[in-house]
């Protein structure tokens, strides 16, 4: 199945939910990543119940807290 993650075309296994996708993509701490699917933010508590579908566009947004 083809999806776009952070503007990169990727082929991923069929039938994953968002938690599983983050695991497949080696995101170590899913609680530190904010995800949009096709422009809509997904709540953290809905990651496990959100299926990934063909041609989904997903930016993974990471926290950056520095500044000083």
């Amino acid at each position: 199945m083809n999806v776009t993650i952070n503007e990169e075309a990727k082929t991923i296994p069929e039938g994953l939910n968002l938690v599983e996708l983050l695991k497949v993509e080696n995101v170590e701490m899913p609680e530190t990543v904010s995800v949009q699917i096709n422009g809509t933010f997904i709540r953290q508590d809905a990651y496990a119940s959100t299926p990934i579908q063909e041609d989904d566009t997903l930016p993974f947004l990471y926290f950056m807290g520095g500044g000083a």
Partner: protein
Amino acid sequence: MRAFSDEELERYSRHILLQDVGIEGQEKIMDASVLIIGAGGLGSPIALYLAAAGVGRIGLVDGDVVDLSNLQRQVIHTTAEVGTPKVLSAKRKIEAINPHVHVETYQTMVDASNIVELVSKYDFIIDGTDNFSAKFLINDACVVAKKPYSHGGILRFGGQTMTIAPHESACYACVFDAPPPANAVPTCSSAGILGAVAGMLGTIQATEALKYITGVGELLHNKLLSFDAKTMQFRTINLAKNPACRVCGGTGITHVRDYEAVVCEMKR
């Protein structure tokens, strides 16, 4: 219209030459006020460039004193000023660069008791803080006070920034709902930061402030710009305001509260 002195005409000539800025744009800059929260890695280049640009009134908020370990990136401070309050050290440099700028200093950290009043006094706010509780607090206060602001974050070799028009464009909490769990995300003090990367992001934030003031170009509204200096790849992710946002969704929040400090600032 303000009467420019010969000195001002010459000082700002490279702005005035810019077709999009001109005399009118420079006048807007001189009439503007900007609050810089954090006089550190981001706040240093931001303050230097906004001072040079002639922003009429610059507010600086920081409760820290200059530490030797700051000097690798906090370019507004000097070796001789180790131990000096950062806001005072920064004020000296701003006034040395441009005596036309009026500098207001607040030697304190922001919290729920002072933040709304602080941001209310300025036209544009810039987040140059180093922790999530302050970043979320600034976002909340700017939403409550309806103040446009620039979010910035840096880590190791990377940075990210977005510009927020409260209630109109996506806010920080639209993107990142709430601070991450304690110690889940490394900070500059625990993970390090390449000094020049702070300059890269800080100058982007200063540029956004000047664009806002002059009305030139398009701001980073509904866009998260991030870069990785290792590959020098820049990425802009389009965002949308989250209608269910905890902070700006619906009618939005009406007051601010402190977030738990989730970052232990490790000082050597």
